[in-house]
């Protein structure tokens, strides 16, 4: 009896952790790229909302989850163009522009949602799960880990790709140099503007994808401001991850689990008030920050605009 309960608890925790952790994972991967390149993207959450809304609408009308996810990434990327123009090219303050994007995107998506759907919230069909043969048969964790919508596997594949890009490619080296000492990158003959633009755009695309995952795969509906601070948690995860993709995964899943912990507890008969549920991820952030904040390493030129010849 108690064995069955633990099994149910565990699988609820894991599958819930993935469900809630994936958007964080996408967003924090994006922020990792951007931060390594020296662009602090405070507007991450705004890009998630843009991606979430666009992805939802596209999926609703096209009935294709994949098209929706792609559209979400595209919307995030287009939003990130603002960062490129104002921060990377014109050298305006990244925090100010980021906050502006955050506020504008939140308002923009909720107004559109209202205008289009009023107070109804249409639902999308769930994205079908893909079982990985053999692995899905592992007791307890098998079904919860290896029977996921394909986008989850794509997410983990992206982690591997990012890991490789950061460590073993010229682009990764350029990216890190742009964040540490852009003048050195410039002197080495690489355009800092180009590298940082790519970084900012990737961050937007990743955040948009995360938002789209949230609305399309996670919730199946779009509600204004549905991200509930996920973007900021993503920023924290990226900072604590210190540019290492693996730590970003661990961080995202842990935060995801702290969200799903309450649901899992309910399964075993312990009910938790909804306020506590909503609070948990932030408590988790606080605890993690208190314990690990000293280890956060930020690139030396993070947030600083670069222009050649200006000393």
């Amino acid at each position, binding site marked *: 009896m108690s064995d069955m309960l633990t099994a149910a608890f565990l699988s609820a925790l894991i599958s819930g952790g993935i469900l809630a952790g994936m958007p964080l994972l996408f967003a924090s991967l994006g922020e990792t790229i951007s931060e390594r390149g020296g662009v602090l993207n405070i507007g991450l959450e705004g890009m998630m909302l843009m991606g979430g809304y666009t992805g939802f609408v596209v999926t609703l009308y096209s009935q294709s989850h994949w098209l929706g996810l792609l559209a979400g990434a595209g919307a995030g990327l287009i939003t990130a163009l603002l960062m490129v123009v104002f921060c990377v090219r014109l050298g305006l303050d990244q925090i100010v522009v980021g906050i502006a994007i955050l506020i504008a995107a939140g308002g923009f998506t909720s107004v559109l949602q209202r205008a289009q759907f009023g107070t109804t919230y249409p639902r999308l069909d769930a994205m079908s799960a893909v079982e990985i043969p053999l692995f899905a048969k592992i007791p307890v964790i098998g079904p919860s880990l290896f029977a996921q919508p394909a986008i989850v596997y794509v997410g983990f594949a992206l982690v591997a790709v990012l890991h490789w890009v950061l460590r*073993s*490619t*010229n*682009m*990764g*080296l*350029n990216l*890190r*140099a742009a964040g*540490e*000492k852009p*003048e*050195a*990158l*410039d*002197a*080495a*003959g*690489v*355009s800092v503007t180009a590298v940082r633009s790519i970084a900012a755009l990737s961050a937007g695309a990743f955040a948009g994808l995360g938002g789209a995952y949230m609305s399309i795969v996670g919730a199946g509906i779009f509600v204004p401001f549905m991200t509930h601070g996920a973007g900021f948690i993503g920023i924290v995860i990226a900072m604590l991850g210190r540019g290492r993709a693996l730590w970003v995964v661990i961080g995202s899943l842990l935060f995801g689990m702290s969200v799903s912990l309450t649901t899992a507890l309910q399964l075993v008969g312990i009910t938790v008030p909804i306020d506590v549920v909503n609070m948990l991820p932030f408590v988790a952030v606080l605890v993690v920050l208190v314990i690990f904040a000293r280890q956060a390493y930020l690139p*030396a030129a993070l947030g600083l605009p670069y222009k*050649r*010849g200006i*000393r």
Partner: protein
Amino acid sequence: MTNGTPTHIETMTSDLLQADGVRAGATAGPIGPAVEVREVSKAFPGVVANDRVSLAFHHGEVHCVLGENGAGKSTLMNILSGMYKPDSGAVMVEGREVTIDSPRRAIELGIGTVYQHPTLIPVFTVLENLMLGEGVGVRLDVEGGLRALDRFAKTLGLEVDPHAPASRLALGQQQQIEIIKALWSGSKVLILDEPTSMLTPQGIEELEKVISQLRDEGLAVIFITHKLHEALDLGDTVSILRGGRVVGSWGPDVVKTKSRSEMQALIVGAMFGEGAGSLEDVAEVRDGVTGRARRRGLPNEPVLELVKVSVEALRGEVGVHEVDLTLRRGEILGVAGVDGNGQRELAEVIAGQRSMVGGDIRLCGESIARAGVGRRQSLGLRYVTDDRIGEGTVGTLSVGLNLVLKRIGEEPFWRGGRIREEAIDQAACDLVEGFDIRTPGTETRCGTLSGGNLQKVVLARELSFDPKVVVYNKPTYGLDLKTTLAVRDRIRDLAESAGVAALLISTDLEEILDLSDRIAVLFRGRITGIVDNAPGVERHVGELMLGGDRGD
């Protein structure tokens, strides 16, 4: 350029005109100068940094460029390396006119640069620093990079660990990496902007070997320095900038035929014009430096005492171990040693920027072990850092504010919490004048000053407002000859007339011999000996610096 116009300016121009034919025979390289600038001008708000500069740099030649701080040397080099765009004039590479609009273009044209301020990324490994920007494919070609590094290291006779983080290398090694980086993609022209100012004599010697070798391979080397003897040792051609203009340039025909002292007189005369007379017998150009006798009759009153001071070694440092030092009123105590033997740690622990793991520091008899940086400041302890860009100045603030940076909130610059612009301006103007800081005005952003002038800002701030004890860490690095002497005079003068005690940390033995009363030697974070300064003492100090015998 009123009355100081040197007559050799004519020889220079004719030299430039006929240069092609004359020099081509020296190497089998392409005909004509490797790089040539014609009538290049560049102005910044308030200053003309380069004023119709024309110079030619030839293959197989070391071309030394000298000039006082702010003369426009770095600006000219930045134009060649694609960092600045000239306002007018032409740049020719191997006889063709080119537009160098980015560092990428300069690299493609075969111009490699070692900038005045380091461009290594501290957290990157040596190999990563070298490979930055040079990769063509997607993947980092680590094996290829290692092979190339190996080749460079072999030909230049250097030894480097490719996987060590750059921050962990000694300055001399970092400099070597910068040079390899500048040569990495097959440069035919190598620009070295003050590569020796932070190096020890051994480091300089190694560098000189490397440079001669590169010259023999047919490279055009542009070498900027403030040290006359380096220019005389290395230079085939020597050119002088002053106020943005070329005021003298002598080709090999002159440099190799005139005697050292004749050349010295020519160079100093061009560099400083009428003010040069007093510099004729400067220590810097004297051959064979030796100590000068310790001053007698100093009061025996200790002002700064270090008792068994120990500092933990951070990554890549040696730390400081049980250092005992006593500094008396008005005394100048030199701390000699090869760079990276605990100099910075020692300076910072005295300034209060680092915590001690053991021991005690007393200022005028009272322990300041627990006092913070600000408290030590107000007790009259000053620290002239060797990191003028990082911690010495705030680049985005005005020169004026930088000069009173450590007096924030104090009378007369602040009153009742309000800033008093006139008071600051007044004091800043006085300091700018007193220390001969070349700046368009006190409102100018400090970051735009030339390297040497930044150093003057740091010095001016720390040496004003009643210092009692000053810790100098490489006080004159990057300063031109005249300013170096002025700063040394000031250090001496403060000690003699105002009784300001000085702890003079320097890697420049000549400077220590010139100024100190006593000399302590730092080796691996320990004091290996303290000796009285006297003629002939340098051999003993030199041995101690390399960890030789202990004690006196």
